[in-house]
């Protein structure tokens, strides 16, 4: 019989306007690389990464969504199953920050009430083009009682930390919860091996 390769499974979701760097953040986290040339995400994308937290092996199943209004019906259907949501804006584009409240409303409408959230101000490597002061990001996060970080997928700043903090927050309120025993019957899970 195949041995169990993880203890917990967390489902995370990335949302935010298109172009803020969601796909790059996820790629940085899952493959530790930066690629400037991502095609636009249509519908939904998917990555897996297994991490260790508090002595437990946690499999993170991360959904990356398209930002444009057109895709909301198909993307909001993932809100419900998510245990953590990463809300991303671009510090060099004030509009993407103004839309954070819209995304928060979306979460209220479609996600579980106890979903863990996190706000990320991405592209903090481009300080010369900054349009959103760090203090404003902190303020809105404080107002909604959500953790906040500025990140850069390009310069690899705070990316790992962001995902790990979100996972930790979920872990904190799932004491002793164990994953279903029948998961991972696949014997040749090459993808999981590649990621860990």
């Amino acid at each position, binding site marked *: 019989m195949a041995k169990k390769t993880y203890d917990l499974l967390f489902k995370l979701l990335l949302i935010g306007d298109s172009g803020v760097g969601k796909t790059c953040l996820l790629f940085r986290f899952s493959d530790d690389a930066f690629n400037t*040339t991502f095609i*636009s995400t*249509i519908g939904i994308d998917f990555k897996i990464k297994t991490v260790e937290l508090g002595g437990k092996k946690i*499999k993170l199943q991360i959904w990356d969504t398209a930002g444009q209004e057109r895709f909301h019906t198909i993307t909001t259907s993932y809100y419900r199953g998510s245990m953590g949501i990463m809300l991303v804006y671009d510090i060099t584009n004030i509009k993407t920050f103004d839309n954070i409240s819209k995304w928060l409303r979306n979460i209220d409408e479609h996600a579980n009430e106890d979903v863990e959230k996190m706000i990320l101000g991405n592209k903090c490597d481009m300080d010369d083009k900054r349009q959103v002061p760090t203090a404003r990001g902190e303020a809105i996060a404080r107002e909604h009682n959500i953790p906040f970080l500025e990140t850069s997928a390009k310069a690899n700043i705070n990316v790992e930390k962001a995902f790990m903090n979100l996972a930790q927050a979920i872990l904190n309120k799932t004491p002793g919860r164990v994953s279903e025993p029948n998961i991972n019957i696949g014997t040749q899970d090459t993808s999981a091996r590649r990621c860990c």
Partner: protein
Amino acid sequence: MAGYQQRLKCFEDLLEADVIDLKALRNLCFISGCPHEKSIRSICWKIFLNYIPLEKRKWNDVLQKQRNLYKQYIEEIIILPGKKMKSKESANGELEDHPLNPNPDSEWRETFRDNEMLLQIDKDCRRLCPDLSFFQQATEYPCEVLINSSSSVENLRKRVEQCVLQSETVAKNRLGITLNVVSKKRTHSDEYSVLPDGKEAHWEVVERILFLYAKLNPGLNYVQGMNEILGPIYYTFATDPDQNYREHAEADSFFCFTCLMSEIRDFFIKTLDDSQFGIGSKMNQLMEMLKELDRPLWQRLQDQELRPQFYAFRWITLLLSQEFQLPDVLRIWDSLFADSHRFEFLIYICCAILISVRQDILKNDFPSNMKLVQRVESEIDLRQVLAKARELSST
């Protein structure tokens, strides 16, 4: 390759006729795909998409007329408003209106909406087919009126720059920083170097076509993914061996894209998702077909809750253009366009793809299967899949 020469000859014979035998041409193209040589693919696509008629003697007139019409669109939608913007700018130094103005006039509101749309198109076109250098290269046939540096028109490139500058200004104003700080010229990020004045990259041509299309179809606007539909058409026409076709690639692509969109536009409209023609019903159709043809595979997907929204949404909306390398996409589209029920065949291809990876799906867990269906290219042999799809569709 005798077989290839023979096939080429078949195409040439069919295209030589005064009135094209549509059925025979479709049949040939459906089964074997179009050669790129001798403009065969670009002509076939123009015929299949109803851009040019079957009577060959009418081609010149039709093409001439449509290309002139396109010039007119550019004039009305880009040049005239561009001149106005330019003159406003020089009269006031800065645009007096901006998005935070509480009482914007309606013209401004429209301009502002257009700018938002343009910025979205711009983002998506810059990253069109990033693995391929083609779209970053300069076109031989730029739109002269627009790119001439002494021109009195604000072209789309300048408009994008202007928008970005303006939003920086607005942002800095909010921060209480004085205006003159930001008047420095925006430097472009190194990833996407912009060509010098007087030259245009192919992606900029694609951007212009999409902008015009969106302006002419206000009910639809621009939806992400349209760039992926236009890309292969424009590529085919802009790399045509015939110089005359290449020269008019922009106008011809615009109309062929418009024709194609008229058939698939419902996939791009959110409110139609659950209607008879929307993407939802196509995904259902795929699942029904799979259930019929391969019950255990269908059951497996059901059990894992691996829904078609996770992968087939993109497959169908983009006609598989994001799933394969461009040459393979062109080959798939040969068959799609040649099929008289073309988007029925798309569903057969999707079904054939799933069936061709059935062993893996039956064996793997959900995450592995998700990865598999999101990146099928490396797992399948396209020729076999197309053969399978033809077999399924003919029974």
